[in-house]
């Protein structure tokens, strides 16, 4: 395992994010700024969580209930952070609309708003992938690989890359769903997001069991696919609705 392996793992985790970035975000400077601030936001939330948990670490090996608590608190905290992020976004949106009025340009369209929420989600997912996977990947560029005791069939780097990919997709697209839910005040969307996040996080607990990563990782990918599908349906519906309205008016 050498540089090729390291690059490969990095691409597994970040490939989709990279293509989203170059294809959609890099062309619009404002979206890049949104991406940066969203990443920073997630980093701050992670630092706060780890600050709270710092006193209880390291967890004794063999005990699994601390991890359950950790997952529960972290997911709850992050969903709270998402609400704060939404508030901030609303403020920015008002400012942008006022600015657009002043220079007599069109206000933000529906697709613009969706782009912003996509970017915000990608920022969260990117930060997740960077801190949980990419920063541990440096040894993979060397001459060996690494197995965790509980998961002896797959290299650790591969597992963490796949998990990061799953969470990247979940974070990215659940942000679209959540923003849409908040904007339209749709309860089902608002509940869907934390539930998916929680289920996905709980699924990583399966990895604690010996050999569990062979089950947990594919299940996580399924959750990512579900999120993708849900977000796709929702966006399609919104866009057709809007076309109709435009057509009628």
């Amino acid at each position, binding site marked *: 395992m050498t540089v090729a392996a390291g690059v490969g793992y990095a691409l597994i985790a970040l490939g989709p994010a990279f293509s989203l970035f170059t294809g959609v975000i890099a062309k619009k400077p404002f979206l890049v700024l949104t991406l940066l601030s969203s990443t920073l936001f997630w980093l701050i939330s992670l630092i706060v969580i780890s600050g709270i948990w710092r006193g209880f670490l390291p967890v004794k090996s063999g005990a699994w209930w601390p991890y359950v608590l950790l997952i529960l608190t972290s997911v709850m905290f992050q969903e709270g952070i998402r609400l704060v992020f939404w508030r901030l976004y609303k403020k920015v949106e008002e400012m942008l609309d006022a600015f657009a009025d*002043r220079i007599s340009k069109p206000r933000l369209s529906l697709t613009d708003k969706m782009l912003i929420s996509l970017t915000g989600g990608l920022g969260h997912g990117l930060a997740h992938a960077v801190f949980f996977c990419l920063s541990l990947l440096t040894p993979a560029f060397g001459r060996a690989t690494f197995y965790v005791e509980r998961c002896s069939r797959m290299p650790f780097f591969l597992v963490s890359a796949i998990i990061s990919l799953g969470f990247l997709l979940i974070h990215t697209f659940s942000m679209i769903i959540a923003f849409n839910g908040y904007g339209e005040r749709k309860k089902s969307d608002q509940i869907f997001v934390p539930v998916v996040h929680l289920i996905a996080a709980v699924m990583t607990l399966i990895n604690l069991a010996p050999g569990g990563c062979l089950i947990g990782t594919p299940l996580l990918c399924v959750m990512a696919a579900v999120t993708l599908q849900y977000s796709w349906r929702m966006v399609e519906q919104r866009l057709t609705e809007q076309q109709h309205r435009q057509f009628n008016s």
Partner: protein
Amino acid sequence: MDPAADSPAPAATSTASTILDTLGEEVLAVMSPVSICMALVVLLISILSPPSSPASPSAPPPVTAATLVYLESPSDSPGQKLVGALLDAAVFVALVAVVTFVLVALYYYRCTGFLKNYMRFSAFFVLFSMGGAIAITILRRLDVPLDAPTALLLLFNASAVGVLSVFASAVPILVRQGYMVTLAVIVAAWLSRLPEWTTWIMLVALAVYDLVAVLAPRGPLRMLVELASSRDDELPALIYESRPTVGPAERSSSYAPAMWSEEMQLPADSARSGVNQYERAGQQDNLGSAMVEMRDLGGSRSRVHQTTSSSGSMLQMGNLEAGQISNQGGSAQHAVIQIEQPEEEERAPLVSAASANSAVANEEHRQISSSDPPDEDFEMFESSKGIKLGLGDFVFYSVLVGRAAMYDLMTVYACYLAIIAGLGCTLILLSICRHALPALPISIMLGVVFYFLTRLLMEPFVVGASTNLVMF
């Protein structure tokens, strides 16, 4: 959020561009070179450090002005290290202050020719000797064979072009920006070899000094800036100019040559037309200081090889000081103008009520336009619009990130985000109060805080969770 308001928008959007397309272009034009610079420094450090980390007899911490008083050794107690690092930082900042005052004095007595040539010399020195040393190390590390004459020839040519591009007007802006970033990378790579404690204390001290020197009533940098603006003259200095950028390439690249030529035709001193561009663009920024800084570092290197004589270190200090100056002055006042510029564009055809916000921009606009023919007006405005950042800011941001890279990648990402956030805050402040602001303090403080938070709090948590494959 009301749907009724939304619906008319998309129809217009399909043809007209939304504000998402252009908003933030100028900010990004500053942030992307800073990011590139930091990424290169991190890459350089990670290429150079791993194999030699256990036994690196060839690269002991360099004896520079920053380690005059105390040279850290791993066996010292934390208390010793702290006191030593504090002393180092105090001496360093004092030297920088002295050099800055010398520069101000030189500028006050109009020794601009000397300053400019000094700047050229230092750019050459940095590129040739320090850049050369780094290039040799890289070649060695990668086992690339290259004969000495070829290497020398290439290096000399690259340095010569670098010196030309820094001060001559005819060089494409992309080349100039590239050399600016290269200079910053080289200096930062040298500086990041300072011992750990000294680095941190020095960064904080520099940020504080930057704050004082730019904002205090008699701060040297502020005096320099005011002197330059009262003379309507420019300082030869190294400043990264964002305006004709890589980012908005289509527009700016076509503009760039025109702007340069116009500037050269301006009534400014004919002899200094090349420098004038810089001065004009960054009227109140201390352009020269970054260059000086670069030079200092180079000087310090060479001195290390000789045996650091005290005078040599003084010079180095002076150089560093200059760098600081550039940092402070680097953040130009043009951010406001940039932000308001869209308005300006819109209003020009409409001639409708000028908003109170843009009144300021208009004044600036008029000042510039008063000396120029009307049709050049817009372009001059455009040319004065770019955000300017001293090369010193590039250097010290990169030093911070480079120092973080010696610990872990996680701290690198955290510091990068913190620095960029600090830069963003500085730019926002810049658009509120319209004079030159120090770009170091907010970014450096945030960067240092995030480094230690990440290292002390986050890393054990994240590593503990992810090695158990528990994520959320």
